[in-house]
């Protein structure tokens, strides 16, 4: 368990440094048991920072999300570091971003948080729909403890744990400048059973499945915006010349949207699961990304977000790559 005082002290030290511009962490949300991102610019603001199993957001996305406006003549760009708190899964996003040369290592200061799992906030809210809060979640052994309005409820961890945590292989950040807690040994493995279950169905069943899901899509672009790996300035999903995907919303455009996005993440998606979490109409986006992830691992023995110097998947090849499908 991350010690809150240590977290705040570390943050205070870091944000007090002259070469650090801002610190991105977590703070309590505005209702229920939610937690949300916190942006700290001043040592006086560190007391809002927390880390609990409610801290589901992947903060690595903010490194590439931040708008870089043209600097007025005579001014220098602010090149100070951005400090960011990352769990194990989030840290892989940083590594993959750096592997792609999105920015240099010295532009960020990584505060690593070994993570024992976060909650699925939908399940929490379904369980406690009437709690305005503020409510807090803590983990004690194999239970989540939910504290609100002076009450304390214990729920078995299994019942609230986020699906992605059940197959997490990297609970401890793979890159960090400071680690806030003891390393956590991997406690789960991934057998891709969800992908395999879908692979086993007939072509018509698969299409019926995806057609129902893609028909719900409202093209809010939240999946694309929250994704730490989606940071192209001229995203294919937005382009007008050429226009790959029309702005109109129907099964054809929605399908191509998701195909394009998932495919552009082949060998880059680091499985943080944020896209699926944010989708307002509950499209199982991880089932799409994990198919490519599994294929990439099986076919090319490649895992993104693990080594900073790994050559990107689709800019490399081996002479003996599989070609059983080629006539």
């Amino acid at each position, binding site marked *: 368990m991350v010690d809150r005082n240590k977290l705040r002290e570390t943050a205070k030290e870091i944000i007090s440094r002259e070469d650090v511009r801002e610190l991105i962490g977590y703070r309590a949300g505005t*209702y229920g048991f939610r937690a949300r991102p916190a942006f700290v610019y001043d040592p006086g603001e560190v007391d809002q920072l927390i880390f609990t199993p409610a801290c589901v957001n992947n903060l690595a996305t903010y490194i590439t999300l931040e708008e870089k406006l043209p600097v007025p003549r005579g001014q220098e760009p602010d090149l100070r570091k951005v400090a960011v708190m990352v769990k194990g899964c989030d840290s892989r996003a940083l590594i993959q971003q750096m592997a792609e040369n999105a920015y240099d290592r010295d532009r960020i200061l990584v505060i690593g948080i070994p993570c024992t799992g976060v909650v699925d906030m939908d399940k929490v809210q379904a369980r406690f729909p009437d709690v305005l809060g503020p409510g807090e979640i803590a983990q004690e052994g194999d239970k989540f403890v939910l504290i609100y309005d002076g009450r304390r409820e214990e729920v078995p961890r299994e019942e609230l744990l986020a699906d992605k945590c059940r197959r997490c292989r990297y609970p401890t950040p793979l890159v960090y400048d400071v680690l806030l807690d003891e390393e956590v040994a991997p406690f789960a493995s991934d057998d891709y059973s969800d992908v395999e279950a879908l692979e086993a169905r007939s072509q018509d069943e698969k299409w019926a499945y995806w057609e129902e899901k893609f028909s719900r899509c409202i093209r*809010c672009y939240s999946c694309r*915006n929250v994704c730490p790996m989606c940071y192209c300035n001229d995203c294919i999903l937005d382009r007008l010349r050429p226009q790959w995907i029309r702005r109109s919303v129907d099964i054809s455009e929605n399908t191509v949207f998701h195909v394009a996005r998932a495919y552009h993440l082949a060998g880059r998606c680091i499985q943080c699961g944020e896209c699926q*979490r944010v989708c307002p109409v509950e499209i199982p986006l991880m089932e799409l990304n994990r198919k490519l992830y599994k294929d990439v691992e099986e076919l090319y023995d490649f895992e993104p977000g693990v080594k900073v110097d790994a050559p990107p998947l689709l800019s490399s090849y081996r002479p003996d790559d599989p070609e059983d499908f080629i006539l």
Partner: protein
Amino acid sequence: MAAKKLSKEKVGEVLQELSKFRLITPVKSDDVVIFREIADPQEAFLDYGNSTVPPKKVVFPQTETLFRFTLGNPELREKNVEEEGTTVIFGLRPCDARAMSIVDKLFSWDFEDPYYLKRRELTTLVGMACVQPPSINCFCTSLGGSPFGKEGLDVLLVDMGDHYLFQSLTEKGGRLEEMLSSYLEEAPAGEEEKASSMEEEAKAKIIRSIDPQGIPEKLPSLWEHPLWKRVSDSCLGCGICTYLCPTCHCFDVQDEVERGEGRRARMWDSCMFCEYTLHASGHNPRPTRKERTRNRISHKYSYYPKRFDVIACVGCGRCINLCPVNIDILEILEQVVEA
């Protein structure tokens, strides 16, 4: 008109009767509640909180054709909305209906939008009162609405247990009541009073609130206030809050051409997208999420009320519930009040 009683057992038959029109009800797609046209009354899911996507989608479709054309031919074939026929939305919440009344003002202002207005004319709204507020983040009462609100509805249904109280509120509602008269019975004595006290109970269950008094006037003075950067730092710039908002109504217009045939289509747009005010020159007067957040709040709580005397928000709480990073409009407004 006096309220009537609609037994829950008869609802299936009523929906069957209504399915001769374009009948739209809440349905479940996996675990997500959306509004969709139904053919089979069994599909209707009426025991719900509130839908994820608001029913504004019915009168203001996410994508609609304005006119069609053939390349090389100057004739424009305007879309005839009448072809969609009479539509009944059965089971929407009062906030969503009130939202439509709010948006009506814009679409009938300096340009009377024929598509939107014709659809509104063809649509009958049968509402379902909120005996319980659907979510902890509902705040309709702060903005002049109510869980049993009648504004914008043609008929209001109140769930009394084994039956609904059926109150027709407008001429359209009256015509519907007549059409369904064989399924309706006399309401038991005292039902309307009972419904009134249920309304008070429901209102009392709404916890979150904001006093909007003075906010429209104050907002322009906060143009340079640091609160905007603070509240928008975590914003992802997606379209969830705008697309799920029953009062948001921005749209883009694009031409689509395929092998000589084309259409001009209108589709939802979001002021939170970075390309919303992107000029062809590359200049963007709202370059970051800070400007766009400031614009969104100011539009809903200042510019719209100044022009139309009503705040463009009904307190349905969808934006709060579904924002991925927990940006909370009530928190923003509290900061505006305190600023």
